[in-house]
């Protein structure tokens, strides 16, 4: 343990020193061309009717539409069942003590609910106009089907380790699923490719981006009092993350995991009050969403431009098609993998259709009431300004919520990255500790250096891994469909009964 502590101390000191010596600039200049190239390839855009459509977004949306139709609108059909499953109506009392559907859902949701729900929506509305909200909701709705497919497969093809713990996720279903279809080599390649992507993604958007945003938030509330103190904030955050993921101090994680849902409810509650206080302009704001969706007035690329931005933000927020949530859901021990998929339908629903929409309405109604409410503020600051119009003190709890969201997202992503790592290097404890130390160092780095290009690379890779992931989902979809229909039929016939009313 002492050695680990010493190692971290060295890592962290290097980080601080790196900043002082301006090494971040060196890294930036060295990686910028790579980032530019990767970004260009992954976010390759095709121009249509004056708008630019990134192929990768098209790929994700095409998948979501396909799965929605292929599974006959399971996002509507399965909704009630999803709630019953989460409530535990179908849980066998004999399995008490195992991971419940609720727990898996809560963990996966706290990994996705984050700064994107507060700031990302503001970006969407700024760039894509009010109409982007409509497409954001639509994308959330379609994304539900993609989630179902990936989470079902995550449980079905997971690995059970000799010590009784489990490892699952896209890398496992890609490898095993393709192998079952006689494409063993291809499956191995795809699995490894995915593992590398999720590992680098975990260091970027799941880590540096989060710690950086948390620092910006804190500094904003402190009125710039933390300028130049990024290294200190970074060290503290890295220290807390270290205590949780290396030191195994679960109580900290448990506290955040408990506060995060509470903060989400708190956020939604006050957002609804703001919308209520702006009620006089609500019809106009809603009207703008619909007309904006169809006409795209004032948006580059018109309606199509609004559509692209809405879809892109939704994917950024709910991660449907990226496969990350599938890793968290694999932990559930169930005889019916498809039940986990049905439960995961609720994830894009909560994340995108509920929380993002509420944020959009807060911004939308404020914008109708006072078009200049935010001044030049963008992103999370814009959302903050919309709340501030009604509650002058709101930026403080909002910043607090932002920091907590960032923290819980980091904890979730540390696990996703770890699973990518153990997929590549095996489950040895030593390897896992090395990974966790790297992860902590990046938390500190995120606050100190503005590694834009590295973030761009990580961003691009997270989107790149949806290519093998969705390809795998297409190929394995018949299995999901078969299990889904069989499960639903057994519920209809009464073969599977609720335990609660029995």
């Amino acid at each position: 343990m002492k050695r680990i502590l010493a190692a971290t101390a060295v890592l962290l000191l290097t980080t601080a020193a790196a900043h002082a010596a301006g090494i971040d600039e060196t890294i930036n200049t060295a990686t910028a061309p790579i980032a530019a190239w990767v970004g260009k390839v992954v976010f390759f855009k095709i121009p249509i009717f004056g708008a630019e459509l990134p192929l990768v977004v098209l790929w994700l949306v095409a998948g979501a539409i396909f799965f929605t139709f292929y599974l006959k609108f399971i996002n509507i059909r399965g909704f009630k069942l999803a709630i019953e499953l989460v409530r535990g109506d179908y849980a066998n009392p004999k399995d008490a003590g195992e991971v419940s559907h609720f727990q898996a859902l809560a963990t996966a949701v706290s990994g996705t609910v984050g700064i994107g729900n507060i700031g990302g929506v503001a970006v969407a509305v700024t760039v894509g106009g009010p109409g982007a909200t409509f497409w954001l909701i639509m994308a959330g709705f379609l994304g539900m089907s993609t989630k179902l497919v990936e989470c079902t497969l995550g449980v079905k093809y997971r690995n059970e380790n000799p010590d009784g713990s489990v490892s699952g996720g896209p890398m496992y279903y890609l490898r095993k699923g393709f192998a079952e279809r006689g494409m063993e080599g291809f499956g191995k390649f795809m699995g490894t490719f995915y593992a590398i992507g999720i590992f680098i993604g975990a260091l970027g958007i799941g880590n540096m981006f989060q710690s950086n945003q948390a620092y910006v938030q804190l500094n904003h509330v402190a009125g710039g009092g933390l300028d130049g103190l990024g290294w200190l904030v970074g060290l503290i955050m890295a220290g807390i993350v270290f205590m949780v993921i290396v030191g195994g101090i679960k109580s900290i994680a448990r506290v955040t995991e408990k506060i995060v849902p509470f903060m989400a409810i708190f956020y939604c509650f006050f957002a609804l009050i703001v919308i209520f206080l702006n009620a006089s302009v609500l019809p106009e704001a809603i009207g703008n969403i619909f007309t904006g969706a169809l006409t795209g007035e004032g948006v580059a690329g018109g309606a199509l431009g609004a559509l692209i931005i809405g879809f892109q933000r939704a994917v950024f927020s709910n991660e449907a098609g990226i496969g990350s949530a599938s890793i968290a859901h694999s932990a559930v021990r169930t005889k019916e993998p498809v039940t986990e998929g049905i439960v995961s339908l609720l994830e894009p629903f909560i994340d995108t259709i509920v929380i993002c929409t509420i944020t959009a309405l807060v911004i939308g109604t404020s914008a109708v009431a006072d078009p200049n409410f935010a001044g030049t503020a963008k992103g999370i600051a814009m959302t903050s300004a919309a709340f501030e119009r009604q509650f002058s003190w709101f930026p403080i709890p909002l910043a607090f919520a932002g920091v907590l969201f960032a923290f819980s997202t980091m904890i979730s992503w540390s696990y996703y990255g770890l699973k990518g790592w153990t997929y590549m290097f095996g489950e040895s404890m030593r390897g896992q500790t090395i990974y966790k130390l790297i992860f902590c160092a990046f938390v500190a780095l995120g606050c100190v250096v503005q590694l834009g290009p590295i973030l761009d690379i990580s961003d691009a890779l997270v989107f790149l891994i949806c290519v093998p992931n969705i390809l795998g989902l297409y190929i394995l979809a018949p299995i999901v469909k078969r299990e889904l229909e069989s499960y639903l039929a057994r519920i209809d016939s009464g073969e599977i009964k609720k335990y609660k009313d029995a």
Partner: protein
Amino acid sequence: MSNTFLVAVDGSKGSIRAAEFATERALASKSELILAYVIEWSPYSFHTPDELAERHKRREEEIERAQSTVLEPIAKSVKAKGVKVEVVVHHGHPTETLVDLAKERGATQIFIGRKGESRVASLLFGSVAGSLVQTSPVPVTVVP
């Protein structure tokens, strides 16, 4: 037909007294005992992904520990007195789980030890014996 007594056991001194008392009653009335250990657990709690992945392993460990350190020693001494005994470990809400067990196994009585908590403590943390008395479908004997 012999009766079945359910005894709530958590390893505390009170629960051992409850088991001893129940053994005497069982001897006198030719009844059988079920020793039940409830591990407090809620399906609606929040965990990190790491904890979820290890949950199954932890659950087995918890059950194994309850059995070897608490239930088996008590069951041994009960058996030595000539009473037929069975042990059960269950996860869940203590009171609800005991009530469900009593119903499921057709127990005719529940025995539970009491901790003698102060009013403040039982107000804060609740008392299993207290709520069991209120919700049990069969008579409950609270052993001081």
